[in-house]
């Protein structure tokens, strides 16, 4: 693997780590498999890019992007809790609708280019250069900062009264309802929060690569799950703080593994999805394989 590919993997691992944290909130905390993310990632990218091309400050554009993601998640939550549609199906419906919405947001085009527009990376690039650090690491530095801030905020949130209610909603909804929590509200806000993070991730990706594109969300949920599962297998723990950190670490490891696989001659870039799916299957089967090997040991 080249230094360039290595930097790229770290960078992607950190920025998509924010997305993985969003998926963690739904998939692990709320026990709610949410496919909305495949639509809310490009939604965040589209909203941020359009705001920037209309002259908004690139930092400020992250806010409407996250708000849009939050509302997208809320719709999935409302479809599930109020209209009683199965959660998986509800999220697929929102994702499908978002495809059209994303194109509308971008002005009836499938993409928006940011090549001549300012991004949040411009000032950082100058700052990093003045310290003599390789410009290839600019994005990584900024994404690391984002990751640390979001991780800290999430750990704080999970320890608040609301966060505890969120955790209980995923663990035992019957019990937490009997303790006076309206689980419809916690689910709607939780899924909203998750998609706000995914949209933030999308907005940062768009600013980094210089374009928002309607199809950039394909496979988001699988990459998110892969990061979570890889993180849990390698760094997992019981404490919520460790679990949150391990999601981002898992995301980085996952991107490095992908980069490593793609650097081999046998694989082509189009094999990415196959490699990802295989990786997730392998990680998910790990406990089963472990038990099988242990039991074999007992028999002999």
């Amino acid at each position, binding site marked *: 693997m080249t230094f360039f590919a290595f930097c790229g993997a770290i960078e992607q691992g950190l920025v998509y780590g924010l997305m993985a944290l969003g998926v963690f909130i739904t998939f692990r905390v709320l026990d709610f498999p949410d496919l909305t993310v495949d639509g809310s990632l490009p939604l965040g990218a589209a909203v941020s890019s359009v705001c920037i091309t209309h002259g908004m400050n690139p930092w400020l554009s992250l806010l409407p992007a996250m708000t849009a993601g939050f509302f997208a998640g809320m719709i999935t939550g409302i479809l599930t809790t109020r209209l009683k549609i199965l959660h998986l199906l509800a999220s697929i419906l929102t994702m499908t609708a978002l495809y059209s919405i994303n194109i509308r947001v971008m002005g009836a085009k499938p993409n928006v280019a940011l090549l001549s527009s300012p991004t949040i990376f411009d000032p950082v690039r100058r700052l990093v250069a003045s310290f003599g650090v390789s410009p290839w690491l600019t994005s990584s530095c900024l994404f690391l900062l984002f990751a640390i801030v979001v991780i800290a905020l999430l750990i704080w949130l999970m*320890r*608040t009264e609301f966060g505890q209610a969120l955790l209980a909603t995923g663990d035992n909804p019957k*019990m937490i*309802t*009997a*303790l006076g929590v309206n689980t419809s509200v916690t689910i709607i806000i939780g899924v909203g929060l998750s998609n706000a993070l995914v949209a933030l991730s999308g907005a940062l990706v768009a600013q980094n690569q210089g374009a928002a594109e309607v199809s950039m969300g394909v496979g988001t949920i699988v990459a998110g799950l892969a990061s979570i599962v890889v993180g849990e297998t390698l760094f997992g723990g019981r404490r919520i703080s460790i679990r949150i950190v391990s999601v981002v670490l898992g995301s980085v490891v996952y991107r490095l593994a992908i980069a490593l696989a793609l650097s081999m001659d046998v694989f082509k870039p189009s094999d990415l999805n196959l490699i990802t799916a295989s990786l997730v299957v392998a990680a998910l089967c790990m406990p089963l394989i472990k038990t099988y090997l242990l039991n074999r040991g007992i028999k002999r």
Partner: protein
Amino acid sequence: MLEASSLVKYFDRGTVNEVLALNGLDLKVEPGQFVCIIGSNGAGKTTLLRCISGSSPPDSGRTILNDSDITMWPEHKRAKLIGRVFQDPLAGTCASMTIEENMALANRRGRDRGFKAGVSRPEKEVFRSSLAKLGLGLEMRMTDQVGLLSGGQRQSLTLLMANLITPKLLLLDEHTASLDPKTAVLIMDLTCALVEEGRITTLMITHNMQQAINYGNRLIMMHHGRIILDFDEQDKKKLTVKDLLQHFYSVTAETNHLTDRLVLG
């Protein structure tokens, strides 16, 4: 205190599987009463408790609790007034969260949950001392996950949690049924202690006739969605299991006879 009037509840109404679970049931409970509810399977005992707690609202009828008409209140709003313990010892706690986190969740029953600490420091001391009273050594394991506890320990914890904020009404749905006899006695003694301490109005479902006679100060028997027998404290003292079974068979035989005749006729 609690006044349920003309509660009607159907399951699968309008289908061949239609069941009338509550048939215009009326129940009035005075403050401080500890009511034991007995009856055969399908009598409507659990349905009654679910109607009162709001987890399965009745088709018609009114429910008044603590001078508020709670008929239209959703389940989570009723939780302000009602503490509950379920039959399944795993149902009342969160397995993946710690003992102190579970207790903190219960300590905020019916309150708004904002961005204050999920478990506060002064709170922990309160939890520690109330856990110590159980005598199970749980006060030393407050940061252990609840999933590591046994069924009996979890049910003790659930009972304690239901009473952390003294409820206006305590609903116990066969809460000792899935425990071993020794633990069941422990839980019943703890129940009595907590109910007496807080003078809590309580409804307890049980299939154990002896338990129904020994505990509480009122006993009602349900059958086919109605209350068919109601013993106050005086009458209850004289009851024996034999009497109760006799009552039970005479009433159920009557109705079976009726249905047989209907079928044959």
